[in-house]
């Protein structure tokens, strides 16, 4: 009987310390992210959405704490997915109240990552569940999967460069759900040029969109006026 109790106590202690470890890890990642109050950066944005054909765009990113993110194409026009604000890491921790769950370890490429699930305590939050894949050595998030109430599921993949100390990625891949796109009947009057049309199967295959941002020229904590986000 004593043995059983001791084993039970040991397991409880292990689980408690594990939860403490994960909480600490998340806390450290959060602190690193919080070092950035604002930034501007230049980026090349590549859009891959089944119903869109667009060129690679040169865009500017503006961020201001806690959760303001704006992507601007000053020279041309860009299609920005709704929910692009989730590209901002601060947004994941913005509510402040969440339960951290240790979901073990995994591998992203050659990097061993800690898998952490965040459950917001507020039931009215748009985010239902966030899964973070954290590089424990560098204390940065390499990948996130976020499930929201209204805007489907988002996936973020980050690669870091010179600004890893600020948790600012050099490359972001943002994967999001796309809804069926419908043109109003009779507005196009298409020219039937004889080219191959997408089959219904091909159209169905691609229900997710992808935005790829290659970011450079970060200007961190230099101050940004609120007008930018209007």
């Amino acid at each position, binding site marked *: 009987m004593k043995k059983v109790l001791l084993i039970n106590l040991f397991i409880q202690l292990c689980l408690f310390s594990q939860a403490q470890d994960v909480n600490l890890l998340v806390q450290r990642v959060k602190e690193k992210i919080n070092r950035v109050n604002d930034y501007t950066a230049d980026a090349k944005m*590549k*859009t*891959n*959405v*089944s*119903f*869109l*054909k*667009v*060129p*690679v765009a040169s865009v500017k990113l503006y961020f201001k704490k806690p959760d303001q993110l704006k992507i601007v194409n000053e020279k*041309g*026009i*860009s*299609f*920005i*997915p*709704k929910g*692009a604000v989730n590209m901002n890491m601060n947004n994941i921790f913005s509510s402040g109240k969440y339960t951290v769950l240790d979901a073990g370890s995994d591998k992203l490429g050659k990097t061993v990552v800690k898998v952490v699930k965040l459950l917001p305590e507020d039931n009215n939050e748009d985010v239902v569940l966030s899964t973070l894949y954290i590089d424990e050595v560098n204390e940065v998030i390499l990948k996130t999967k976020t499930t929201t109430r209204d805007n489907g599921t988002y996936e973020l993949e980050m690669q870091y460069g010179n600004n890893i100390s600020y948790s600012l990625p050099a490359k972001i891949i943002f994967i999001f759900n*796309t*809804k*069926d*796109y*419908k*043109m*109003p009947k009779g*507005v*196009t*009057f*298409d*020219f*039937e*040029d*004889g*080219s191959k*049309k*997408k089959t219904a199967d091909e159209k169905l295959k691609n229900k997710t*969109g992808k935005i790829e941002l290659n970011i450079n020229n970060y200007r961190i904590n230099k101050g940004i006026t609120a007008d930018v986000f209007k």
Partner: protein
Amino acid sequence: MWNLLQIELFKIFKKPRTYLAFAVIAAFIFLIQLGLYVNGKDWMMFMLGSLDETMVVDYNKLVNGYAVCFFVLNLLLVHVPILVALVAGDVVSGEASMGTLRLLAAKPVSRTSIILSKYFATAVYVFALLIWIAVISLLVSLAVFGKNDLIVAKTSGLQLIESSDVLWRYFCAFAFAFIAMMVVAAISLLLSTLSDNSIGPIVATVGIIIVCTLVSEMEIPIYQKYIRPYLFTTYMLGWKGFFYIGSTADGETIKGSIEYLPGIIKSLVALLVYIVALVSSSVFIFRKKDILS
């Protein structure tokens, strides 16, 4: 031939109805520009359907000079044939009804030269009309709405063409539209050689265009398979092909490319075959014609 062409041009540009087309086009384009200047954003939101459910885009930027011109051409190039028919349908039959055709045929010039000079004079009129459309719809729109990337809506989706990649497409589109309008002019000319009054060829040309356009656009399999490929109206929309940009498998547009050039070339060849066949028929009929009026 040059003298004959000058005479024919003088006849065309002396008639008030010739300028009516220019005035109608100017008024039409002005109304569109005014409407889009006031409600351009709403119009663009309607045109792009359910896009705003997934994407955020600056609709004000989308309503630019290139987009306005593209919209104008979509609406206008369906109706310009009527204005072409108004002049081209009158070139032979008008003279027949006035009694001057006999005098013309009595001159020491071949009937082939007469009919060809009339067709070339009509070509000058069509060219002037398209230049007029280009100036008002493109240059004025660019001046009023500014320059930015062009959005093109297809049933399968949307494509964005960089502003630096647009202008040459308009040149090509207008050149293609010229060939397409010359088919209409050739039909009118043929009907004009068969008639002794102007109204008949003009109304008949308009009727042919309406019927053929409807049959071209009706998605009824038997029409799509057996009739559509032989209708000239099927190929008249080929100018739009210059605005269908090529892309990589990832949907990244390729600057300076056309999605399916063979389709445009096929349309162009089809229209040229129509022109040759119709003008040759006109020459043949006019050469055999008993000019009694």
